[in-house]
């Protein structure tokens, strides 16, 4: 799969405040890219630029270019519902809808088409299996999603994203609020799923970035709070031999 994000000269503003400055990066298909950096370094802001989640915040402004598969996603013609289907998102706190497990997974396919009951049954089963949750929930698909544990809820959210066949999945600290076993399951899941779509993960857990990602991007803000992409490279290289001293200082825990 060749879907790629290409970001050129991206600046981002909250009102007068410039949060991101001149970000240039290319995200390859079928890879996992980790965004790391200290709090307030702009990594989540940048992540939310990629499916225009920042549009929901008033007074925000984007300059520069973000293309997905070669097409600018910041034009007036961009269908935001479709963009967010293609570019799914998993948040720090699992946020299943207050409905049954089944309906959570079926929500997207129903929204984007009108599948038959048997088609839906198939999608629900397949995606729950892919999200490594099927065995735990197959006998209680009609139970409330909120009755699941946090780790299970997060995997349900992943199933919900999978059900609409995304091309990229953005994960904002997906494992920071859940237990180590579920974290392990989600990390394993990421490795399996990247064959089907690219994953971009924001994480404060540098070991998680080192474990799961193919590429790592290190962000850092200057004194005014303006964030730059300091270094982007293969994860092996970033964690054994970073080129930029600031990357070295951050990942070795000498600042941040």
């Amino acid at each position, binding site marked *: 799969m060749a879907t790629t994000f290409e970001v050129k000269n991206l600046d981002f503003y909250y009102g007068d405040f410039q949060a991101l400055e001149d970000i240039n990066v290319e995200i390859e298909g079928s890879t996992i890219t980790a965004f790391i950096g200290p709090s307030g370094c702009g990594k989540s802001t940048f992540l939310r630029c990629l499916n225009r989640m920042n549009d929901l915040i008033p007074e925000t402004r984007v300059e520069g270019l973000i293309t997905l598969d070669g097409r600018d996603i910041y034009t007036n013609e961009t269908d935001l519902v479709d963009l967010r289907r293609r570019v799914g998102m998993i948040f720090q706190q699992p946020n299943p809808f207050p409905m049954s497990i089944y309906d959570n997974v079926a929500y997207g396919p129903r929204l984007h088409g009108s599948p038959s009951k048997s088609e839906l049954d198939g999608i629900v089963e397949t995606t729950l299996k892919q999200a490594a949750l099927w065995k735990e929930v197959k006998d209680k698909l009609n139970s409330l999603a909120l009755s699941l544990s946090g780790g299970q809820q997060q995997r349900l959210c992943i199933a919900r994203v999978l059900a609409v066949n995304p091309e990229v999945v953005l994960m904002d600290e997906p494992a920071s609020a859940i237990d180590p076993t579920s974290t392990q399951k989600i990390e394993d899941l990421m490795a399996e799923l990247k064959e089907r779509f690219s994953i971009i993960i924001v994480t404060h857990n540098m070991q998680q970035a080192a474990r799961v990602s193919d590429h790592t991007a290190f962000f850092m803000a200057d004194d005014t709070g303006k964030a730059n992409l300091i270094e982007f490279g293969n994860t092996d290289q970033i*964690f*054994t031999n970073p080129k930029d001293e600031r990357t070295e200082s951050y990942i070795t825990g000498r600042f941040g």
Partner: protein
Amino acid sequence: MTRKTFHEELSELEAITSQMGELVLHSINGSIEAITACNMEAADETIERDSTIDALYHEIEEHSLAIVARQAPVASDLRLCFSVIFIAIHLERMADLAVNVAKGAKRACPMEGVAPLIKLVADMGRQTADLVEASMKAFSNRDIELAHKLPDMDEPIDRMFKAYFKELAKHPDEESLEWISTIILAGRYLERIADHAVDIGERVSYLVTGYSSDAVEE
């Protein structure tokens, strides 16, 4: 989220490695003193010191593994943890070779009538000790220029070892086989010690740059 305790542990790891280097240098000098002056006290000290050096080697290995397991070091910290293990292995081998030289001295002394050979061992020993000292200095100071000079410092030592055989050929047959072979072996051990020092230099180069020195030359 700076990691103070962690960096103190790394400093300690480095300090133990330097300490091991100093002890090994003592042993090398002691073994040279033993073989060139038949100083049996120096020979015994060198032999006894080996257990302390072995203990330091194990301490460095365990300490490094513990840091890797608990702290998940990365970048230059990770390279340090691995490099000190390799450096410690080289140092430990050097100490073993010094013990071999010292034991040879104990077996073969007194060695009369081989003055030119003794002088050759003494010269070679001095240069080998200088090379070892330089390798550990390169490590402590992260001095990559010095590390890159070590192969050049090793060259005359290799040449001197070859000169042994020319010198030996001059000696009449009635020389004791025991100390002739001891002297040859001492030369061989010193030459190996020097090679280990050059290897330490390569580790230092990797530690500092993240590339092995072979890769840099390409």
